């Protein structure tokens, strides 16, 4: 039956017959036209069998002509661009398109897994819950792998997605979702009033159903009218039209999300173009004109290729100029049958019968049938025959004997469901309408309205009118009023319907949810087993959980369940539709933020120099900090770090500490605020001096530590750890704005203003002398330990100098305006050369702070108190401060809490590892004997062995004791001696030198 576009009609359709496009499906070459979808092109070439179903691997064809398609899913493109589960009905044809059918082996026509279909009587709903339980061990080893291999549809690409995505934010007064007749009128009405309008449509052409129907508007072809409207909208500056764009979710406060397929109609996006774009649209008013989705009728073998929604049949004829079959049977419970018969006839497709489920058809239907010489049967189609596609149908008239008719196409319609999904994303429930025999939008979120088929206004003229009304009202609600616009002339074709859901007494399985292979019998079984809530039925049978979220099947299912439970359909209720309206590529949500650009980088002053000199950078939050600076001949990081430490301890080193948080605190009440923020006393801090401080959370645990420098009577300059800078700033603002708003203080971050370097080591002062302008006396007497002052360097550059030491050596921190940072860094290294200076990174910094027993991130883990880390004495008794009261709870002052100690291996050669747990030397390594854990470790070049800090139960009282540091996950168990948490210069003489 197939051949080069053998089923393409001689004329008609919105396709461009002058532009032929080549494509392949399952390796076979075909051609189609510009304006085709993959589905229309396959049908044009007589291809009916397109996929296999999820569970039984039944042959499936093309049911619809839109995004609701449950059957015709393919793998589109190949290699890194392979897209599984792509709907052939929405994939635009492009030259060179490659598509493969999925979920079949070895071939689509001969799929071995279709034996499942023979086992269908066994593989019923709930099958898995009742089986595969014995023996337990077999589940992961045997049963599940088998099930997992069989399940799934298409295959994800094996390589990273090579295309790019982006995200855009847009604002408008009125958002119109759907560019069909109602949407176009709504956009027009709103736009003419001056309101800013965004109109989205999932297709590449505006018009919606009009593109698929032979409708007249204003006495002419509807397409002409569409073109006129589009021209007017295009000409208006306040209108943005987004085609190939699906509005897929509504969120709070008028925020909607849409996906624009920027380049999916091309073989591959050009390098500068994103593949897709997420639109975050913030709209004051939202009008849903998303149209409606047609329902199939449920009957035997209703999933066979050749069974097609009547509306889709018309789409393929009218929009794509394709004959979806040669001999058709039309099966409907509503007047939709008229249009189908008319269009089939005019396309020259033979019509074997019009089967109307109603006891008697309205007169205009019998007249139409007569006019086209079509046999009108009031009855039902009970079954389809044919293995890989429709060969014939069995018909059971209401009166008379059943009979069979040959045909290759069944155009089926049980009416239309308004696309209410977007109206329910914010919790709204659809409302049942008896007259329309479907669910229509219920209570709407504020700022949202519905028009056209989405509101149940199926007839063309009333749809246009309701769109115009909605557009006008929405614009007025946003303050743009204008006279209502006229509704163009159009007919209101008949839309009467007699609810009919499924045919009783069929020979073959009758499917409700095609993709998940849920049949009427599965729903009956679920009900029989007590799964009677619609949600239970959904979850037990997987009904409505396929990639179409039940758009074609769910209402039929609800009706069938209602009948089984003797409830009304509204009593039975609906299952919630969840965002997205149609599936959206995961990559689009990430946009630019993947790979190395997942998060922005923060670069300190020494970044470029470090890169240029092969220094190693390490991620510290968003910062990239120099970790260490390898030199030629050094075997590993440890050798480099040890050399840096030794240089600092013996000569002088320079370290970039620009990443530390820095905050100006100024004003008459600056001290009062700081006294409440820090646990230790600050009142006695003099101008020109700095002090170490600890900050607690209100719950009494340590929050952060740092230095507080008093630059002036009312000007304090505090530093925070790199990790907590933002948290501390926010905490200070909280205290100032919410807890103590009466305080007169101003807080400003200065982290980025200053490039700051630590200069540490016995020769630090000598080096500094080379940099600081001569006018400033930095002798030990004039500028002692913990002194702070503003000076100048390198010939007058603003400089803030601190005498602080994290390393325990004679040390300073020098801050200059950030633009001079890179130059000062190099200047310090240059000036330091004669003194044997070197740059040192965060690793060496870490080693030295452990040698000195200073706490850092591992000890500041949010569960330690000041006392735990040996700072209990700092807590002031004289003042109220954040964390004081809750910090005195029994659980926080329990003397048995693990407290900070130093540790060194008994066998000096052994390595210590952070994360090891402490066990008494003679005790079993069990949870009951867990005495704490190692927080930080380092190899101390100064001591020539590994050292550690840890939190040990009753730690301070256990100095000298030998305990085990057990590390099962690394297979180690080391004897360590508990010592004081200071390994170098315990009396602190060096830093005062």
């Amino acid at each position, binding site marked *: 039956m197939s051949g080069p576009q053998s089923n393409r009609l001689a004329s008609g359709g919105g396709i461009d017959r002058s532009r032929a496009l080549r494509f392949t499906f399952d390796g076979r070459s075909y051609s189609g036209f510009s304006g085709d979808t993959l589905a229309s092109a396959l049908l044009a070439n007589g291809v009916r069998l397109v996929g296999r179903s999820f569970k039984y691997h039944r042959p499936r064809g093309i049911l619809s002509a839109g995004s609701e398609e449950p059957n015709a899913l393919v793998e589109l493109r190949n290699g890194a661009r392979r897209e599984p589960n792509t709907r052939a009905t929405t994939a635009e044809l492009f030259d060179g398109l490659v598509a493969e059918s999925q979920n079949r082996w070895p071939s689509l026509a001969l799929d071995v897994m279709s034996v499942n279909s023979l086992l269908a009587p066994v593989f019923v709903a709930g099958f898995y819950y009742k089986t595969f339980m014995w023996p337990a061990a077999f589940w992961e080893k045997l049963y599940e792998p088998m099930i997992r291999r069989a399940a799934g549809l298409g295959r994800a690409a094996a390589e990273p997605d090579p295309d790019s995505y982006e995200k855009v934010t847009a604002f408008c007064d009125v958002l119109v979702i759907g560019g069909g007749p109602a949407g176009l009128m709504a956009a027009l009405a709103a736009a003419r009033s001056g309101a800013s309008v965004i109109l989205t449509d999932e297709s590449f052409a505006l018009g919606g159903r009009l593109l698929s129907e032979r409708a007249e508007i204003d006495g002419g072809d509807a397409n002409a009218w569409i073109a006129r409207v589009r021209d007017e909208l295009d000409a208006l500056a306040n209108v943005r039209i987004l085609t190939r764009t699906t509005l897929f979710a509504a969120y709070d*406060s008028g925020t909607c999300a849409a996906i624009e397929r920027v380049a999916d109609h091309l073989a591959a996006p050009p390098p500068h173009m994103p593949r897709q774009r997420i639109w975050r649209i913030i709209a004051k008013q939202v009008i849903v004109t998303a149209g409606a989705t047609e329902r199939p009728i449920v009957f035997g073998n209703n999933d066979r290729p050749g069974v097609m929604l009547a509306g889709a049949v018309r789409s393929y004829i009218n929009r794509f100029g394709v004959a979806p079959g040669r001999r058709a049977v039309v099966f409907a419970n509503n007047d939709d049958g008229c249009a189908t018969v008319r269009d089939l006839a005019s396309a020259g497709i033979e019509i074997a019968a019009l089967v109307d489920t109603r006891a008697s058809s309205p007169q205009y239907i019998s007249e139409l049938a007569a006019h086209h010489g079509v046999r009108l049967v009031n009855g039902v189609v009970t079954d389809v025959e044919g293995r890989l596609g429709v060969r014939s149908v069995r018909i059971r008239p209401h009166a008379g004997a059943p009979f069979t008719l040959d045909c290759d196409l069944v155009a089926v319609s049980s009416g239309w469901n308004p696309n209410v999904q977007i109206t329910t994303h914010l919790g709204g429930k659809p409302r049942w309408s008896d007259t329309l025999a479907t669910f229509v939008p219920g209570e709407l979120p504020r700022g949202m309205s519905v028009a056209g088929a989405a509101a149940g206004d199926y007839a063309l003229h009333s749809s246009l009118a309701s769109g115009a009304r909605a557009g006008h009202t929405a614009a007025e609600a946003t303050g743009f009023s204008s006279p209502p616009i006229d509704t163009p002339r159009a007919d209101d074709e008949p839309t009467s319907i007699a609810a009919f859901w499924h045919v009783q007494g069929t020979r073959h399985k009758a499917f409700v949810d095609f993709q998940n292979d849920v049949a009427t019998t599965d729903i009956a079984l679920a009900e029989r087993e007590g799964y009677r809530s619609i949600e239970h039925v959904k979850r037990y049978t997987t009904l409505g959980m396929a990639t179409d979220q039940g758009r074609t099947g769910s209402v039929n299912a609800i009706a069938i369940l209602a009948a089984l439970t003797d409830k009304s359909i509204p009593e039975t209720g609906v299952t919630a539709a969840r965002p997205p309206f149609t599936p959206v590529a995961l990559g689009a949500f990430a946009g630019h933020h993947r790979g190395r650009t997942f998060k922005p980088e923060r670069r300190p002053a020494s970044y470029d120099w470090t890169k240029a000199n092969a220094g190693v950078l390490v991620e510290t939050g968003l910062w990239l900090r120099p970790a260490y600076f390898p030199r030629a001949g050094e075997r590993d990081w440890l050798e480099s770090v040890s050399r840096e430490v030794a240089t600092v301890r013996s000569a002088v080193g320079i370290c970039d500490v620009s990443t530390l948080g820095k905050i100006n605190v100024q004003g008459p009440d600056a001290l009062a605020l700081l006294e409440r923020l820090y646990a230790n006393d600050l009142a006695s801090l003099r101008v020109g001096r700095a002090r170490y401080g600890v900050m607690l959370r209100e719950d009494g645990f340590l929050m952060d530590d740092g230095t507080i420098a008093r630059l002036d009577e009312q000007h304090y300059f505090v530093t925070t750890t790199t990790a907590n800078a933002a948290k501390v700033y926010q905490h200070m603002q*909280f205290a100032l704005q919410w807890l103590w708003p009466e305080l007169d203080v101003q807080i400003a971050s200065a982290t980025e203003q200053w490039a700051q370097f630590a200069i540490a080591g016995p020769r630090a002062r000598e080096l500094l002398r080379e940099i600081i302008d001569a006018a400033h006396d930095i002798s030990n007497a004039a500028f002692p330990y913990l002194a702070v002052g503003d000076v100048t360097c390198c010939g007058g550059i603003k400089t803030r100098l601190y005498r602080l030491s994290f390393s325990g050596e004679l040390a300073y921190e020098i801050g200059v305006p950030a633009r001079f940072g890179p130059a000062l860094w190099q200047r310090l290294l240059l000036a330091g050369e004669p003194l044997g200076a070197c740059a040192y990174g965060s690793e060496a910094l870490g080693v030295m702070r452990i040698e000195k027993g200073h706490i850092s991130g591992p000890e500041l883990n949010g569960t330690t108190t000041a006392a735990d880390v040996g700072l209990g004495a700092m807590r002031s008794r004289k003042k109220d401060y954040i964390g004081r*009261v809750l910090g005195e709870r029994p659980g926080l002052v329990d003397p048995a809490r693990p407290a900070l100690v130093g540790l060194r291996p008994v066998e000096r050669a052994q390595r210590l590892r952070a994360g090891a747990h402490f066990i008494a030397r003679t005790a079993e390594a069990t949870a009951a004997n867990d005495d704490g854990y190692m927080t930080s470790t380092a190899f101390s070049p100064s001591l020539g062995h590994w050292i550690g800090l840890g939190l040990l139960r009753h730690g301070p009282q256990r100095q000298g004791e030998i305990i085990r540091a057990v590390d099962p996950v690394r297979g180690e168990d080391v004897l360590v001696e508990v010592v004081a948490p200071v390994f170098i210069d315990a009396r602190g003489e060096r830093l005062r030198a």
Partner: protein
Amino acid sequence: MRIACPHCGDRGLDEFVFLGDARVTRPMADATEPADAFHAYGYLRTNPAGPTDELWFHAAGCHAWLVVTRDTRTHVIASVRLARDVALERRAVASTTEDASA
């Protein structure tokens, strides 16, 4: 969800950081039974399903702390005020009641 910052105007959720209940007030240091008062302040929440007052920080904006009155069932926001103003109001009320009781 969007929050109308009194300074910056209507902004998206991703500019703000949620802290928690704004109906609890930090006890005075000299509160009687401070342990109980701080326990309630620090840990007990009415957590209503309906309108409530919450503290939000305009972290990616002007750095104002805000008191947002929001319905936790619908996410609809009834009002947004500067935390400082709300706090100062409460001080005023508290002091007047003290005066009254004094």
